[in-house]
């Protein structure tokens, strides 16, 4: 189990993950941060908000932001279609609770990941910016990336400058 060192927090969470697709890649997100999965609702774009903002949605009277992580992962952005889903994530970012939607190109299943298959993210030769993934793993004979949503929102999305200029 030496190779799984550092994953002590992650392993119990692998019992239940949602497997989804983004930019043609398979990803898995522990369901303890997942509140629900929505079909694509009406998405209101937010002008001037930068590439990570997909827009705003209305869930039962609450306005939630939706993030698009594909530009962050340097993935091509596919047009939204019938398969597109929004993962509603509830987590704590900068000590404040954050509820946010994330665009998924397709959602496959709620699954379990074998901790034995966990691998660290290769330091070079990957598209993943540093710190955005917990690890890689295997599921259904495919590679699956396990994103670290707290890190992503703390260090990448929430930092995005959002100034409007009239020039």
């Amino acid at each position, binding site marked *: 189990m030496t190779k799984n060192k550092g994953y002590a927090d992650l392993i119990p969470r692998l019992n239940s993950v949602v497997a989804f697709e983004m930019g043609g890649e398979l990803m898995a997100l522990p369901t303890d941060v997942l509140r629900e999965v929505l079909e694509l609702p*009406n998405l*209101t*774009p*937010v*002008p*001037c*908000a930068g590439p990570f*903002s997909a*827009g*705003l*949605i*209305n869930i039962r*009277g*609450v*306005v*939630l*932001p939706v*993030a698009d992580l594909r530009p962050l992962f340097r993935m091509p952005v596919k047009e939204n279609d019938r398969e597109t889903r929004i993962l509603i994530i509830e987590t704590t*970012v*900068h000590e*404040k609770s*954050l*509820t*946010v939607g994330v665009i998924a190109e397709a959602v496959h299943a709620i699954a379990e990941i074998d901790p034995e298959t966990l691998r660290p993210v290769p330091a070079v030769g990957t598209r993943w910016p540093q710190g955005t993934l917990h690890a890689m793993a295997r599921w259904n004979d495919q590679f699956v990336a396990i994103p670290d949503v707290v890190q992503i*929102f703390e260090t990448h*999305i*929430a930092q995005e*400058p*959002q*100034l*409007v200029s*009239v*020039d």
Partner: protein
Amino acid sequence: MMDAETQEIFRQEAEALMEALQEGLLVLKDTPDDLEVVAGVFRALHTIKGTGAMFGFSRLASFVHNFEAAFEAVRSGKAVVTPELVNVALTAYDLIAELLEGGDPDPAKDAELTAALNAATTGEAAPATAAAPAAKKDAAPAKIESWDLQFRLPQDFMEIGGNPIAMLDELREVGGDSVSVRLLTDRLPPIAQMDPRALYAGFQVTLPGTIKEGAIRDVFMFHEDQMELNLTAVHAAEAAAPAPAEAPKAAAPAAPAAPAAEPKAETAAKANKAASAAVAQLRVAADRVDLIMDRVGELVIAEARLAAIAAQLQNEALLGVVEDIQRLALGLRDSTMALRMTPLSSIMGRFRRLSHDLAETTGKTFDFIVEGEETELDKTVVEKLTDPLVHMIRNSVDHGLETPEQRAEAGKPERGLVKLSARHAGAEVIIEIIDDGRGMNEAAIRKRAIERGLMTEDSDIPRSEVLKMVLEPGFSTAEQVTALSGRGVGADVVKQAIESLNGSIDITSEPGFGTTFCLRLPLTLAIIEGLLIGVANDRYALPLLAVEQILELPEKLAKGDSATDVIELNNELVPVLRLRQVFNRTGTPAAHPKIVIVGANDTRVGLVVDEIIGTNQTVIKQLSPLHSRLKIFSGATILGDGCVALILDVIHLVTLGQEIEQRLKGNAA
């Protein structure tokens, strides 16, 4: 000892009593003869004592018992209110407050203060002041008994489609059941000269004093220019005592009781009203009101959706019901908003006390005047305002006002003035803190700002902006800038708090004549009337109250495609923002774009939009932290069809407009 929860209930109850107590004591400082106020102080003490004992605050109860005894002496005419008594009583008040907070002050203090109270009241017996209290006005804000409204509409009012009945209905809606209307027929011409279509009658309407002037004037919003309108407040002949049932016999034998000759029904109504002012107060946890507000917001949104569907179906019966629901939802919205509205007077006691303490500590003599404390604001706004106001008042006294000697030297009256004034202006409330002190030294601020790296030696920053530098974090520390009078100590707290309320702050200062801090705050943070506009394929909301004019886009401007431009409007150049370009939207603009002129802070900006969709009830939702740094939007709202629309921030747009203007001026020069 009781459990913590029961004690908490007591603390909450006591809070209102303590506020009344402090208020009463401060009033007595100025009008020591006012027996009604003495009675009020006595009653507050009595109730604190009684409930305190009941809830197990025995030390507090026994101390208050002695405190009360001192005022019993005053009440019964055995002693008079002296400045010393007020001072001791205020210190005693602090002790009670500390005990209520659960603190454990030195027990010796109890005895010491009791002795001081005794000394202050038994020093010399003075005759009871028999004269009727004169300056009762200070005890309670002058209470408006009723509104007397007379209005005459233009003669052709009905011809052009106006409906005076609808106006009266609206007034009834504003004023409730007690609205009475009388027809003024004095301008009726002889029947032979009468035009059957003309409106000759005027109306005299009496409305209850509880409603606000603005609400009445709103009814005539679009007509006020062409009509005669006289609105006068009828003040109560007597300031209502906090508990009228007890007041006359206990405290003020000379106070005018309701004359027996008065018609019975009216007397009863008056008594009722006074009683309801004093008794029918319900203390509700703030988050419950928030919850109701949320639900009402949802209801308003659902109602808009229903209206949209009904409009599509064109079913008469359904449309009727929708109209009813619409009216109910709006009524519910208004009452809920009213629940959240709190008059500024609820926090004024604190400021009066502060000014009293400041006078003691600084040795400066000044009058602290409050204007418009009946002005109501959303409760969250009021709560968040307290700290900044404390800061500003303290600064005005500490650093703005000169010592009596300096004032005499400068040829000013020795007694300084600090004024806190509040008033409504459109969808905003304006609060000003004015002092007549030495004013701010622009040169010193400039120097300091350069030292601090907030500006450079050669920056061309207008005076108004320079003065605002004192609000920057770390601008000054107390001991370093005596020349500058140390303003700015903690002033960034002020700026932060005001900004978090979507408000703005302006400073004007005349050396030698004083300084004015002007705060502008939104009336509410919950629901506004919005104007829905379309840009590219998206919809956005603008606060309707900020909209001044909507025009067809002039030919000349239609051709341009840069984000900014200017338009001449009533001989004034108004900067223009093309929202399509500002939002980086491509595609063909609408065939007939419109320009919406919005204003804030006395400046205007024109927004080029593709279409005007209409007005709607905009329930403001805060933007998530992910978008909150986008200053151009102040929030989001949910439309009738369930979509989200962003709310444009007018103040920010106007600032952008000003930047454009500056730049254009720069180019021209």
